[in-house]
């Protein structure tokens, strides 16, 4: 049986975690409510385009938490996490394509429009099953998980670490992008998958569906956060940080470092897949551009800005940077990439622990000094404390 404190101190991670979960719960209820119930004239009305925009950021936040789990806690700097996000997105996109049915431009009962256009006569085998939601839902986690497993199996067993690993992950997402651009891959080429109609029988462009997707994304983000917290606060989490800080020492203690890395990498890839799957019905399109290396690098910047190894910070970073991006690409689009680069440099130089990491260090500092000198303080909230 799980002890009662299982869901309390250990998982919530003090005030940032509590605030984060409360904010998510509030958003999940209030935003859809205000969008659906209040008249557009009301100052408290959240317009639909804003619901979609914030919903998109929530998906990014889940991707950021997934990335923070491997980078912040295990030191695996993945520059290809966008690939897992996009794979999850494509799995969902394939389901949505098959829901179009005869309502496509060519009205073919089985084949999506782009296949008819390419003169394909039958559905490729890897599109089988995607007319079923449950099958697509499994693929959303299974495909990114399987890719992460195969990739990690080879990379971690051959002890590829550091910059080399980062470069390979980058190459992975780049290779996938090139592959998905090809028409004969059967994923819609450079147009990707779009023109969706229904998800589980609800119109994807309807206001109610959008509101529901928003609430579901909030719940998924909260669940992702709690799973990540559960992992990092377990004894497994202690090993992860040990690997990050002193990999070979951990090996001499008898831990099989490659298996630990593999496990956390696969979990993280699955989480990224879920984020991608929630993203696609909200934005209405998935194309190979999602595999672009810059997407993965942007995700790394979110985590760096918010604070590595904090989880809440990673989500916060995704929000802050994307809010900044939305404003800037509207105000002066040509400057955005420079601004992003500058942001990364500035954060690295002046805020190496990120927003949340810096706040945490500030709060801890005055308390830590006398504590060390005198008697031991009450147990901090680590995994192995308490009866």
């Amino acid at each position, binding site marked *: 049986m799980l002890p009662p404190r299982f869901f309390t101190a250990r998982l919530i991670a003090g005030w940032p975690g509590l605030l984060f979960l409360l904010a998510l719960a509030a958003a999940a209820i209030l935003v859809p409510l205000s969008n659906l119930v209040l008249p557009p004239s009301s100052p408290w009305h959240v317009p639909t385009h804003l619901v979609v925009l914030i919903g998109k950021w929530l998906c990014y936040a889940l991707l950021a938490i997934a990335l923070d789990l491997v980078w912040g806690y295990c030191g695996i700097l993945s520059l290809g996490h966008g690939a897992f996000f996009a794979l999850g997105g494509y799995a969902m996109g394939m389901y949505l394509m098959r829901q179009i049915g005869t309502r496509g431009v060519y009205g073919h009962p089985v084949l999506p429009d782009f296949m008819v256009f390419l003169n394909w006569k039958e559905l490729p085998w890897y599109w089988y099953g995607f007319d079923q939601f449950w099958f697509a839902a499994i693929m959303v986690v299974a495909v990114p998980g399987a890719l992460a497993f195969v990739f990690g199996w080879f990379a971690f067993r051959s002890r590829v670490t550091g910059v080399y690993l980062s470069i390979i992950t980058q190459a992975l997402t780049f290779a996938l992008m090139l592959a998905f651009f090809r028409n004969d891959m059967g994923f819609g080429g450079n147009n990707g998958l779009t023109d969706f109609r229904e998800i589980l029988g609800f119109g994807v462009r309807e206001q109610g569906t959008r509101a529901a997707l928003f609430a579901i994304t909030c719940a998924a983000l909260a669940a992702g956060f709690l799973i990540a917290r559960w*992992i990092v606060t*377990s*004894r*497994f989490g*202690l*090993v992860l*940080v*040990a690997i990050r*800080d*002193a990999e*070979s*020492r*951990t*090996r*001499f*203690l*008898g*831990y*099989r*470092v490659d*298996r*630990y890395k593999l*496990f956390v990498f696969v979990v993280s890839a699955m989480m990224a897949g879920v984020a991608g799957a929630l993203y696609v019905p909200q934005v209405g399109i998935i194309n190979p551009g999602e595999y672009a290396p810059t997407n993965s690098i942007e995700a790394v910047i979110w985590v760096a800005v918010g604070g590595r190894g904090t989880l809440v910070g990673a989500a916060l970073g995704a929000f802050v940077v994307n809010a900044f991006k939305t404003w800037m690409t509207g105000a002066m689009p040509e400057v955005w990439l420079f601004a992003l680069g500058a942001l990364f440099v500035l954060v690295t130089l002046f805020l190496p622990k990120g927003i949340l990491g810096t706040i945490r260090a500030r709060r801890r500092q005055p308390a830590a000094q006398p*504590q*060390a000198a005198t*008697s*031991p*303080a009450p*147990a*901090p909230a*680590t*995994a*192995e*404390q308490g009866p």
Partner: protein
Amino acid sequence: MNPVETSALLYVDGVSVSFDGFRALNGLSLFIEPGEMRAIIGPNGAGKTTMMDVVTGKTKPDAGTVLFGGQHDLTRLDEAAIAELGIGRKFQRPTVFEMHTVWDNLVLAVKQRRGVFTTLMARMSGAERDRLDEILAVTRLTELRHLSAGALSHGQKQWLEIGMLLAQEPALLLVDEPVAGMTDAETEQTAELLRDINRTRSVVVVEHDMHFVRALGVRVTVLHEGSVLAEGSLDAVSANERVVEVYLGR
């Protein structure tokens, strides 16, 4: 590999290792009996650390036999498997997990199954807790248990690492320069601690500090250029002319 009949806990026979033509170990043979404590001395580059690397699986020897408990061929196992067999190592430079608290460092070291799912579900048992409390007391770190290990003094880190070794409950401890950077008082306490540990476990200590080796009062092996130069009590090897020549050098 031919089976070897040996009573030794650690059996190292004719081991050679070279790095880019440099022979770090040259036909090294060494036998540690169960329950024994052995001090290994030798000038820099004599092969002391390489010997430990070979035993713990970090370096694969070019030739020779390394057996643990007379049956486990250590040259075929990796670091994690060797640690699991019961060989614990303390490094020359104290290597503790600096971001973790003293307590968490011990939790990481504590003897338990090391599988992914075991640690994911692990909960601390009362017996484990008592055991770690005991180790904290022995290594004088009880008051500092919630401090991050990075904030410890050099000597305290050395002790924490010894504590981590104890938590692993190994049959054989390899201890590399445990008193480097310690005060005289700390050095004496460490000698006492190791003698205490030796009551239940075999220990191999590599050390430069002669006072410390004398305080241990155990059999000494002198390494030179990758092989054994002399073996015996500290007084006996100190009297050996070759040893005086290459090592004591005065």
